């Protein structure tokens, strides 16, 4: 009816009114959107750009310094870590490769196979392996042969020879550099001997078991001029580099307290590793295993769970505090603490171990006006991250970074009052793989990142930090430069860890006499 009436004229006034009735809504929306956008911009400007932060670039991987020459590598110790290091270097047992392949077929989210195949070829060959346990030694040989990264059906290249004593491996002519992944009580001897033979070294963390050994290692490495990398792969974590930028720009204000933690709650996390069914006095060279430490009758427990005894390991301090410490040392250049107190006990795993499963260490840096606190439990998985607490803001430092302003900050007082900042909202969030530092990162994105759904990327690719750490070491061997976790960093790591261990075991406050380089 209405239609007929309106047919002649284009539109009636009524049509126009009804047609455009909801247009004002767009106006209101636009106004709201502009206000919000403006507030965000203000917030971003006052934070990211005003602070001179520019995270626009992805971390750039330094191009591999392959001079065309293939480096010949020997591996000493092919246990849990040895296997991971070999994978990171591009040599995995064919059985493992098959496992990952099957995993990927079952579940597209299982990226192990794809990541491994995409990992850069480091232009190395494994020429020598050494392990005291026959099963591990044979596994190492299989991994070394698998330069094609294939499964059991693939072609293998037998390149490596098995040595029963690490000295023979180190002195072999066809070995340019060694990767050491033995228990801590062996590290020092192996590094010193390798340095003396002029072989470059990648050694796992917990540099040494004793204090004296730290000095021996430093002397040998410095005198020989070899390239040594300590196995703190956290050095390669993209967010730590960004954290350093944030610290260097003094965004947190005066830092007074740092808190780092370890929380685990399963037997594996508490070093109760499986005892291999084929482990026996026939397959394990026990007398060699205990050579650098106190003698003890053959013990499968001690061999596979060595971290639980002081004869072989360095406790929570050497095993796990070191990772946290090195991360912070990388960001803050803390150096060795002035003094340390520590406490703890065997409170949960009363399985005959000597090494505490609950442990705290408090390290003082009076010249920096700050305290560094480490707190660990192997019987609770409650998550407590690394937190750097400053007068103006604090930063949580994991794979992602979150900087939250302090309610009583002097520096951000105006912004806090104006509501541009608030102490219950992060002012800076950095998520690797995302292109920018984002003051308005939504809760959703943080949630995704915390679940590990956003990864550490290098130029858009997800990569294993251990791979990058080995790669850096090889690059330095080729170029003669110093790697990021070199002997100086390693020295600081080791002394710091030993101070905490001594404080615990001797139940006293220990001091570092920097003049005479002595723990007193």
């Amino acid at each position: 009816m209405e239609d007929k009436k309106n047919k002649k004229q284009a539109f009636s006034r009524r049509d126009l009114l009804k047609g455009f009735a909801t247009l004002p809504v767009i106006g209101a929306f636009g106004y709201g959107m502009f206000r919000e956008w403006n507030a965000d911009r203000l917030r971003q400007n006052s934070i990211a750009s005003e602070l001179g932060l520019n995270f626009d670039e992805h971390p750039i991987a330094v191009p591999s310094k392959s001079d065309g020459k293939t480096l010949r590598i020997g591996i000493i110790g092919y246990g849990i870590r040895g296997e991971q290091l070999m994978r990171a270097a591009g040599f995995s047992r064919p059985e493992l490769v098959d496992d990952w392949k099957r995993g990927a077929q079952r579940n597209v989210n299982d990226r192990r196979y794809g990541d491994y195949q995409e990992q850069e070829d480091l232009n190395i060959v494994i020429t020598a392996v050494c392990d005291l346990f026959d099963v591990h030694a044979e596994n190492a040989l299989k991994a070394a042969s698998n330069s094609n990264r294939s499964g059991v059906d693939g072609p293998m290249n037998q390149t490596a020879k098995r040595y029963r004593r690490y000295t023979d491996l180190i002195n072999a002519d066809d070995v340019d550099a060694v990767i050491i992944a033995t228990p801590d009580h062996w590290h020092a001897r192996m590094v010193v001997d390798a340095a003396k033979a002029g072989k470059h070294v990648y050694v796992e963390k917990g540099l040494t078991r004793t204090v004296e050994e730290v000095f021996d290692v430093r002397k040998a490495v410095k005198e020989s001029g070899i390239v040594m990398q300590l196995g703190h792969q956290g050095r390669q974590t993209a967010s730590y580099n960004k954290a350093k930028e944030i610290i260097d720009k003094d965004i947190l204000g005066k830092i007074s307290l740092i808190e780092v933690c370890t929380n685990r709650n399963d037997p594996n996390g508490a070093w109760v590793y499986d005892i291999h069914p084929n482990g026996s006095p026939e397959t394990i060279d026990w007398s060699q295993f205990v050579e650098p430490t106190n003698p003890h009758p053959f013990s499968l427990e001690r061999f596979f769970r060595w971290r639980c005894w002081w004869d072989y390991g360095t406790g929570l301090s050497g095993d796990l505090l070191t990772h946290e410490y090195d991360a912070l040392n990388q960001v803050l250049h803390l150096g060795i603490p002035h003094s340390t107190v520590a406490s703890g006990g065997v409170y949960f795993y009363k399985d005959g171990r000597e090494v505490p499963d609950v442990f705290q260490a408090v390290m003082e840096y009076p010249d920096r006006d700050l305290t560094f606190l480490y707190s660990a439990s192997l019987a609770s998985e409650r998550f407590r991250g690394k937190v750097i607490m400053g007068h103006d803001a604090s930063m949580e430092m994991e794979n992602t970074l979150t900087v939250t302003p302090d309610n009583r900050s002097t520096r951000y007082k105006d912004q806090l009052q104006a509501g541009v900042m608030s102490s219950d909202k992060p002012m800076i969030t950095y998520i690797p793989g995302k292109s920018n530092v984002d003051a308005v990162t939504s809760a959703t994105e943080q949630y995704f990142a915390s679940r590990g759904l956003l990864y550490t990327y290098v130029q858009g690719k997800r990569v294993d930090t251990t791979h990058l750490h080995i790669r850096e070491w090889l690059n330095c061997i080729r170029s003669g430069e110093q790697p990021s976790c070199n002997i100086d960093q390693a020295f600081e790591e080791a002394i710091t860890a030993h101070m905490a261990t001594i404080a615990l075991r001797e139940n006293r406050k220990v001091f570092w006499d920097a003049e005479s380089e002595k723990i007193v």
Partner: protein
Amino acid sequence: MKSEISYSKAQLVILVSSRVLIGWYCLYEGMIKWINPSWSAFAFLNDSQGWLAPFFHSFAANPTSLSVVNFLNIYGLIAIGLGLILGLFTRMATVSGIVLIFLYFLSHPALINTSYMLPSGESAMWVNKNLIFVFLLLILLVYPTGDRIGLDRLLFNRFKN
């Protein structure tokens, strides 16, 4: 073109208001993604669970399909939002909205014991806000209003003889 149904004034006001509100919601969802240059559906797709999860994961896995998904999400939401608010191509906007939001629902179905985050942290069992959203849009589909209050009134009536 005009639907046959006749509405009372109250019915019309409520239907149009619902349409505008849903449009507003979609428009904002689209705009906020558009403003944020680093927004990507990557994580959302990867977080998908339920029996269609492999389908959504595969979109995230491929950079080309991911950028298509991102594009469709941002501009799709904006277009749907504008369409619903203005009553412009209302039918198309409504149908697209139903499809898009149903896909959201399928990617994160409110199963029992899910460990992922449902939109805005709601608590839900089987029925969640996305599903209700879809049904609201279905109501708007069977009770259309764009040709009465909205630009469709001008657009489609014009070419009628």
